[in-house]
């Protein structure tokens, strides 16, 4: 069974560890919802701990962008796996992703 966790740190960074895709997207969405609003206006999601991903992960990123923006928070993604960026490029969605400078 695939699993993933979303861990908050004090400096406005949420770190994902584990699978980031179809098997875990729903659970991560719930975890992210619980953490929404508990951070500064600027929030970064760090994907360096992602062990595998698919287009459901990309869909989750887009959902987060929408929800956090609606909540008045600015979201950035850090250390996005190249394979996930490739899916975003092929889907013509790459320009929608707010990528943080590494």
């Amino acid at each position, binding site marked *: 069974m695939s699993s993933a966790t979303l861990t908050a740190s004090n400096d406005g960074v949420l770190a994902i560890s584990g699978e980031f*895709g*179809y098997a875990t997207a729903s659970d991560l969405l719930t975890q992210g919802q619980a953490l929404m609003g508990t951070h500064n206006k600027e929030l970064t999601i760090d994907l360096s701990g992602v062990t*595998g*991903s*698919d*287009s*459901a992960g990309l869909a989750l990123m887009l959902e987060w962008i929408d929800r956090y923006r609606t909540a008045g928070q600015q979201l950035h993604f850090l250390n996005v*796996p190249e*394979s*996930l960026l*490739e*899916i975003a490029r*092929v*889907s*013509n969605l790459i320009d929608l992703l707010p990528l943080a400078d590494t």
Partner: protein
Amino acid sequence: MDKLIITGGTRLDGEVRIAGAKNAALPILAATLLADSPMTISNVPHLHDITTTMGLLGRMGVQLVVDERMRIEVDSNTITNYNAPYELVKTMRASILVLGPLLSRFGQAEVSLPGGCAIGSRPVNLHIDGLRAMGAEIQVENGYIRAKAKRLKGARLVMDIVTVTGTENLMMAATLADGETIIENAAREPEVVDLANCLNKMGAKITGAGTASIRIEGVEKLSGTDYKVLPDRIETGTFLVAAAITGGKIKVRDTAPELIDVILQKLREAGAIIETGDDWITLDMQGKRPKSVDVHTAPYPAFPTDMQAQFTALNTVAEGVGIITENVFENRFMHVQEMQRMGANIRLEGNTAICTGIEQLTAAPVMATDLRASASLVLAGLVAKGETVVDRIYHIDRGYDCIEEKLAGLGAHIRRIPD
């Protein structure tokens, strides 16, 4: 609309990887509707028509996931509706391919009629007639094909004309029909064979794919499987012509040489030295100018119409006079006028283009009206003096996966300018 800017004069040199064939991937994606368990499709090209098809399936409620290796996992058990709307079908005629699978597995389908086509008429009446012969009730009204059937019944279907999508649609429909279906005068293209191989892997009983007579013994159900789409023979041919026209030397990887015997033969006639392996082809022009070749297009295994424009480009700078006869589609010489603007010496007589090769083309702003014509203008740009601007490249993006990156990787001076 994006443009491609090509500075001609560089001999292509290097290796290029060929993508999966769009014309196989699209029907195979449609075939996933027939499976009663999830299936995974790999070697799918990164093309707009593929994402359109995924969008079409997604709108029906089918669950799709693209994994890290760009494989597409499809589960059609979550389907909620059986409708292919006009706004998607009008952008991609291949949407009609969902008609047979939807009707066969779910007993109903509502698919918009496709619109016109720039390169000639491609009627869908053969799809409809075939399904009716298998017992479907079909109404064509308000621009939609509305079809119903309890369970399709096997039938002997004689196609008036050879049609690839017609053969594919009816073959898919017949897999779950009651009894045996025979499709006579079937299309023989490798993409039809690839679809049949995929369906057989899912549990279908199809024999004769690749011949003019295909037999399908209907089964109760099909199951999901893993399937790798065959390589794109037209992309393969296009890169080989690109190398030949520039006097270059390239190796094409992850392809299937046996699918393009007739193209390789024409390239040898043009003076290319060609070697092949299991999944690769090398072409070496040794820096020489190509010789003109005569080409007559016809359904597979004869010379493909989808390579006609590229060979027209080759003939524009080849030694001698080459005659190209287009026997498949009417109105498929739109690229000739653009090549004439680049200085090409081509005379059109009905469905024949007579080309006297010149030493070098001259760059010009050009645009094209279909996918292969666009590709041929890019090839012409590779050997034109100056900077050729190819407009309306959304056509080329529909059929070639990362063409400018791949050509640049072979040394071409080519870049994309976003509009």
